[in-house]
């Protein structure tokens, strides 16, 4: 209904107002770009002039050449692939598992009451502390990293989704019940679709959390991946490698976030 552009002769004041909005948006964007250029430029300049030590701080040009070296040796995409694989698998499993647990807890009030203190403690516990236990239980490898990633995301997913399910309007539930709906129908027709916006927020949180989980996992135990490159670079005092890997990580997280952002726009469209 709203996608047709109306052709209306706006008053001068309104044209002025619209222009002001446009200018405002433009200046913000310009400032953002300029800020980035300034930081990168200053960084490059100061290290180039040896005011700052490029050995400790690396520099944009050294990061780029490091990336090119990695690319030429064919290992760049290998490491990216490994980390991306671990993150996406962890992200997917944690989101699905957390949502399923939340559904079970929504279904059974009794179970919810019983498990409440355990979930609160599990949520408060710094999951990294379980690192050694995970390695012993699932072995030192990719599975340990994915487990770490899942562990970090799953509790917050469960808690967020459960509260979204429980927030469902009592009147709407009563409406479906008055039509003779059973609990499963209430779940499918109302409670789950109603929590969709919250689900997208959870996805957003999990984008960040799953990267934290994977990199943490790779710090603990890994033979490849961006986290491995960062740790390795740190150990051999190769700051270029550390910084370059961090940059790649930034870009990847951004892309993943953008995807969720697109999804969010679609979901929000019909929410009041």
């Amino acid at each position, binding site marked *: 209904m709203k996608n047709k552009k109306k052709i209306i002769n706006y008053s001068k004041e309104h044209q002025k107002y619209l222009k002001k909005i446009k200018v405002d948006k433009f200046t913000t964007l310009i400032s953002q770009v300029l800020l980035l250029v300034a930081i990168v430029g200053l960084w490059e300049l100061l290290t180039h002039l040896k005011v700052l030590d490029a050995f400790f701080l690396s520099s944009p040009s050294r990061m780029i050449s490091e990336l090119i070296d990695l690319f030429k040796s064919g290992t760049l995409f290998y490491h990216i692939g490994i980390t991306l694989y671990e993150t996406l698998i962890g992200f997917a499993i944690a989101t699905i598992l957390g949502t399923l647990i939340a559904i079970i807890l929504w279904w059974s009030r009794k179970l919810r009451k019983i498990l409440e203190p355990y979930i609160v403690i599990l949520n408060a516990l710094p999951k990294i502390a379980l690192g050694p236990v995970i390695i012993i239980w699932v072995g030192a490898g990719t599975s340990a990293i994915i487990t770490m990633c899942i562990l970090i995301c799953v509790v917050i997913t469960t808690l967020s989704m459960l509260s979204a399910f429980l927030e469902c309007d009592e009147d709407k539930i009563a409406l479906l019940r008055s*039509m003779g709906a059973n609990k499963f*129908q209430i779940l499918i027709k109302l409670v789950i679709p109603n929590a*969709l916006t919250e689900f997208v927020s959870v996805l957003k949180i999990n984008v960040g959390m799953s990267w934290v989980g994977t990199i943490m996992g790779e710090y603990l135990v890994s033979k490849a991946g961006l986290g491995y490159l960062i740790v390795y670079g740190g150990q051999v005092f190769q700051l270029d490698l550390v910084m370059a890997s961090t940059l790649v990580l930034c870009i990847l997280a951004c892309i993943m976030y953008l995807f969720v952002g697109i999804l969010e726009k679609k979901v929000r469209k019909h*929410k009041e």
Partner: protein
Amino acid sequence: MENYLQLKDISLSYHTKEGEVLALCGINFNVEKNEFVSIVGPSGCGKTTILSLIAGLLKSTKGEVLLDGEKISKDTNIGYMFQRDNLFPWRTIYKNVCIGLEIKHKKKDQQSLQHVEDLLKKYGLYEFRNSYPSQLSGGMRQRAALIRTLCLKPKILLLDEPFSALDYQTKLSVCDDVHSIITKEKQTAILVTHDISEAISVSDRVIVLSKRPAKVKSIQTIDLKNIESPLKRRESPKFSKYFDLIYRELGSEK
């Protein structure tokens, strides 16, 4: 047709940690088929509780509710309308209206679908069937909510202050609208409200409840049937007489 709905000596108590609260105490009244009955009473006296009992969503501590000679259960076909329209924002108007059919697994029943279409056409919502609730006005949304209940052909329609969330102007016209649809569809309806004039303007009879524990204080027969629209009824000289009467009934409570 006499005594289509019967409430026989209904009592209900709530249990809280602090103790037992008697909400309803020996409620007795009947509703005839195609009759429009309103229930008024001081706020918090248990008006909504009575509707929940008739809907089978609650069980009474004592007494029984009979509809068309049968005891009320969870599967009794009743229609419920709430204060807010409770349309699902992620569904189009058509899909919102059809939710009851989905619940009852009648989504493929041609007769029911035809009925939905007829209702939508008859009450001017057909061209908005693909719109989302947020694109409609408050009055139209409430009309959609009414059609959602009507398409299940309920044996009785329960209205729980369905106009109180609307502003005064809209309220009067939506009230007119809903009343005419209910009359046209020959529905039996019970309206719960705290608005005395609203109750008088739409009903054949008004049941006045006492404060908690609620009892039936009096039942007023409203003789305004010859005037069709609730809005016009408000102008009748008899209207203010009824208003005074019920107002005093309620007032003597305090």
